[in-house]
Structures are given as structure tokens and as C-alpha cells.
């Protein structure tokens, strides 16, 4: 499969910090991958996601998505991607339908297309009956689902998911994972971060373990566990990042 994301020597240090958030990070993601970015808190996953989505700028290095540079061609990239941030990113005082109408409009989608896509996604996640309820009145799981729906609204080529299933019940998590698998099979590239390693193992065909802004290891979960003589991704994670924590 062709490479859809190319990250080359990416560096980022936040003001007032001596430790770089990203330290000459280089990584490639193939089209159609379901790619897991795994690592402990503060490893640099969210910083990397933010740079890829155009929310933040790197100090040096480059990122290209679908052959487009994330600095000079970010507007074109934004048409191709969908983002599901870790924290909820919704208008609580608007209903689900109004949220989708607003975000669809900001994507530049036609009103009719927004309505069709909203109905399809709200039905998929069981929110159609609650479409006119204010997002503020939704349960935690419903809010998470709606958060994901907004990211899926423009049928993105690449979907960035920053811990999309955090704090939700098992049923909703299952629905989300199943849908993500479905769209991945249909060709959508997923870039996914999570602390649920079993979930990552189930969803991702490729993972990269990040710590202190660097890639520790990168490859298919089964190959990595075999390579490091570990029984699971969780064991691999603990083994590779344990050293890093002890050295910190």
C-alpha cells in the first residue's frame, strides 16, 4: 500500500520545557492502515497528532499527508481528514442535529448531504431518537458517540482518534470499535491513540510505541511481541517503557 503519512525528523519543544515533546521522530503510515500510537502519558502522542492535524507547528522536521505538506498545504489536508479529540469538542447548548449542521457547514458540505450523513451516523450509533436533545443533556457515552460522529461527518480519508473510547460503557465502546473496523475495511486510514492496549491490539494492524518523543518500536503487533519475546502488547508496552520510566 502507498504511504499516506510521512513524518521526517520531527522536533518540538514547548516553551519553558527542556525535555523535547518530539525528538527527531520519523514514521510512515500506509494508506488503509489502522495505526496505533501508543505510549505513556507525556510521551508525545497528542503533540504528534496536533502537528499532523495542523493544530500545532513543529520546530523542525516535516509531515506530509497524502503528499501534502502540513505547513503550506494544511487547508487542503483539512478537507481529507477527520479528527476526534480526546476531550469532547461539541456545542453543549446545541442539539445533536444542530451540532452536525454547524460542523457540516463549516466543512463546506451541502445542507442536504449533511442531513443525509447525520441521519446515517446518528442511526448507526443509536442517537437518532435523541437528535433534537441538547448535547449537554446527553450521557457520557452518547457525548462520546456524537464526538466521533462529528469527526466522521465529512467521510474523511484519514481519521485521527485521540483516545475515542475513554470513559464509556462496554456497549458503546464495542459499537465504536466495530464501526471503526468497518470504515477501516472500507478504506479509511485510522490513526489511533489509546491507553486500552487490548483495544489497540484488536483494532490496529500497525502500532508505534512512543516514549519521550521518540519511536521505541514500530510494526505489526504480533511481530513486535514476538520480536521482544512478549506475550501481549501490554507486556511489550511495560517492557519497553519501563526502562524509559526508570531512566527518567
Amino acid at each position, binding site marked *: 500500500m502507498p504511504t499516506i503519512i510521512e513524518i521526517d525528523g520531527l522536533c518540538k519543544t514547548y516553551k519553558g520545557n527542556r525535555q523535547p515533546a518530539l525528538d527527531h521522530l520519523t514514521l510512515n503510515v500506509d494508506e488503509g492502515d489502522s495505526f496505533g500510537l501508543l505510549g505513556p502519558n507525556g510521551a508525545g502522542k497528542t503533540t504528534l497528532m496536533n502537528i499532523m492535524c495542523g*493544530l500545532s507547528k513543529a520546530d523542525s522536521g516535516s509531515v506530509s499527508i497524502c503528499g501534502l505538506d502540513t505547513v503550506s498545504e494544511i487547508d487542503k489536508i483539512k478537507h481529507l481528514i477527520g*479528527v476526534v479529540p480526546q476531550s469532547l469538542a461539541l456545542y453543549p447548548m446545541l442539539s445533536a442535529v444542530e451540532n452536525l449542521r454547524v460542523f457540516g457547514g463549516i466543512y463546506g458540505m451541502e445542507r442536504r448531504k449533511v442531513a443525509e450523513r447525520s441521519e446515517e451516523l446518528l442511526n448507526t450509533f443509536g442517537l437518532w431518537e435523541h437528535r433534537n436533545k441538547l448535547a449537554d443533556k446527553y450521557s457520557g457515552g452518547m457525548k462520546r458517540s456524537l464526538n466521533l460522529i462529528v469527526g466522521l461527518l465529512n467521510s474523511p480519508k484519514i481519521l485521527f482518534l485521540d483516545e475515542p473510547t475513554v470513559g464509556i460503557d462496554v456497549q458503546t465502546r464495542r459499537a465504536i470499535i466495530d464501526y471503526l473496523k468497518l470504515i477501516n475495511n472500507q478504506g479509511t486510514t485510522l490513526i489511533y491513540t489509546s491507553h486500552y492496549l487490548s483495544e489497540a491490539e484488536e483494532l490496529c494492524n500497525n502500532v508505534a510505541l512512543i516514549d519521550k518523543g521518540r519511536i521505541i518500536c514500530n510494526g505489526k503487533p504480533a511481530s513486535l511481541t514476538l520480536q521482544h519475546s512478549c506475550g501481549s502488547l501490554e507486556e511489550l508496552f511495560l517492557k519497553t517503557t519501563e526502562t524509559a520510566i526508570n531512566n527518567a
Partner: protein
Amino acid sequence: MRKFLSIIYKDYLFLTRDIAGLIFMFFMPIALVVLMAYLQDSTYNSVNESKIPLLLLNQDNDSLGCAIEKSVQQTGIFSITTELNGEPLTPDALQANVAEGNYLIGIVIPAETTKKIRRNIRGSVIHTFNPDFEPKQLEPNKISIFIDPTAKESFKTAITSSINEYAARLQTQIVMNEVVAAVNQQFPLNIGNFDIPTDIIKIDEQYARSNPSAIMPNSVQHNVPAWGLFAVFFIVISLANNIIKERDDGSYLRIKTMPCPTWLYFVGKISIYLIICLLQMAIMILMGIFVMPLLGLPQLELGHSIGALLLMSVSAAMAAIGYGTAIGTISTNSQQASIFGSVSVVILSAIGGIWIPTIIMPHAMQIISHISPLNWGLSGFYDIFVRDSGIALVLPESALLLAFGGVCLAITLIYNRQKCN
């Protein structure tokens, strides 16, 4: 266009669902404008319409006395009294009443003042043509002016100068008449009377700005634009909180991941708040035209330039929106924005002459008032309502307001960019 309309749609929904915010934005200024205009009306009337009480005793009843009496009446600024309690005025009673502070000024023109002037001049003229003629001793002749000790020096000078001017004019006319009479007596030329034209030099007195009938705003001319501006600037709190709320609930972050430039996001926000500000101004003006007269207050006269009115309203709105956007972007939380926004607007409005007009402020405060955008706005609206000015004359105030709004928006965009980096 679709993106722009979506941003407007979202802000429209926010605003219409915030009932408390709407009450704050529209009903608070309406209540303030009515209350303050009503409270201040009597104060403005006393400054604008009260006349200076003057006692006049004209015993001359000849040319000079009549000229002074007529001119004093024509000024329109004096309330003239010529008798006290139905009794004819006497010089002693006049002096006593001014001394007691019942009247600010008293003028006594003694009997035969004009005749004495004539006799004195005649003697001098005849002596000029006939040196053998010995004129009589000049008869003492004086006009007395009594002034309340509390009156300002400038006021005394103005009154004395005016009376001196009438006396000098009359003397000149009498001199010419006596010269003509003497020439006709000495030589067989028979010269006619020489009337001195009074308008050889015309003093063209006018107000520095267009309409000379406009002098000082009445309570409605002050309070309608003043509280309209206050309302417009008070949207700073709503706007700043709107921005912070979007930042806190993550929706702004999401918009940044979408193909929507930051400037378009702010243009959308500016547009909806601009409509609100213009609605606020329109409501305040309608209050001035239709509601104030029902309360016994003067009706607001709009002037003749609707263009100037629109320009000033848009400029004031842009200044307020720029300020609110900057506060919302720089503040770390809504509490900080609310406190800073409300306190700063109240201070700027106090300095700018919203609560108390700058004309009755101490000199130092009048100078300081020029730093307040609300003062620029108020000054522009005075130009329209009080001085009946057009677009050209409100351009400086409008430019200042737009520049202020522009600087605030530039700060917002630079701050946003730096944060992203």
C-alpha cells in the same frame, strides 16, 4: 459562504437561547437611558434654559437708555425686571437687591444721560469752530452697573464692554450731528445729517461646526447616544464569554481542525455581534424619538445625515467587538473576562463622559476623557444630534473607533498565531 453562514447560525442559536444575556444586552440599556435621561433632565434644563436675572432702571428714556434697554432684551439671556413688588425701581433698591443676591446684575441709566452727552459734545464742537467760545464745564455723566460679587470676571467684562460700545456709538453719532449743525451755521453749504453706518465692519460670528442653533446637548441628546454606546460596549462581556466557552468546550479546537480559516471564524462572530450592536443603537434611538416625549422629555432629533448616524453606529460597534474579541482571546477563563470586561467598560464610560458629560468635568478629566473610545463615540453622536453634522465631520471619531477595533482584532489574531506556534 456556507462556512460563514454556519458560523453565524451557531452564534445566532447561542444568543437566542441565552435569555439572561438578551435581557442584559437590551433591557438594561433601555432602563438606564430612561432613568438617566429623566434624572438629568432638570439639570440640563437649568444649564441650557435658565436666564440671568437683571434689574434695569432706565431714567434716561432717551436714545442711549432706549438703546441699552433694547439690546439687553434682544440678547435673550436676561430676565429683565424694571419694578419691584409693583413699586417703581430706585437706585438704592436696585443696589440692595443685587447685593442680597436676588439679581445677578443691575443697571442704572440716570435721567438726562443722553441730553448731557449732547450738551457736552455740542460745547466741544462749537469751541472747535469758534475758539472764542468758552464751553461750559463738562457735566458729570455716568451709567452705574451693579454686579453680584459671585459673578465671574468674564461676565462683568462682557456686560461693561457692551454698554461702553452703545455709549461710544451714540457719542459718535451725536458728534457727527453737532459737527454738521456747526458747519451749516458757519458756511452756506447746508450739509444734510450724516448717519454713521453701523455695519461698516461686520463680525461674522458662528459656531465652529455647522448648525449655529445647536449649543449644548439636552438630556435626551446626551443620554440616548451615551447609553447606546454603553450597551454596545457592554456586549464585550457576552462576546468574550462566547469565545471562552467555545475554547473551553473544545468546539473551537475542532473548528481549527476543519477547513475554516481563523479569520473567517472571527468574521462570522463579528457579523452577528455587529447586527446586535446596530439593533441596540436602533432601539435606543427609537426610545429617544418615541418613548422619551411620552415621559415629558425632549424628543430626539436625528439630524439630517442618516449616513453619519450609520457610520458612527458601525464604528462604535466595531470598536466594542474588537475589544471583546481581544478580551475573550487573551483571558484564561470566563470569570476573568467578565470582571475585566465589565470593570474596564464602566471605567472607560465614566472617563468618556457617559455618566457625567465631559463639559462639566474638571479640565484635567476633560483631557483624560480623550483616551476613552466611548468618548470618541459620544463626541461623534453629539456632532450628529447636536451639531447636525454630516459624514465628513464625524470621520475623525469614526476613524479612531475603527482603528481601535482594528488594533484589538490584530492583537487577537497575533495572539492566536503565537499560541499555535
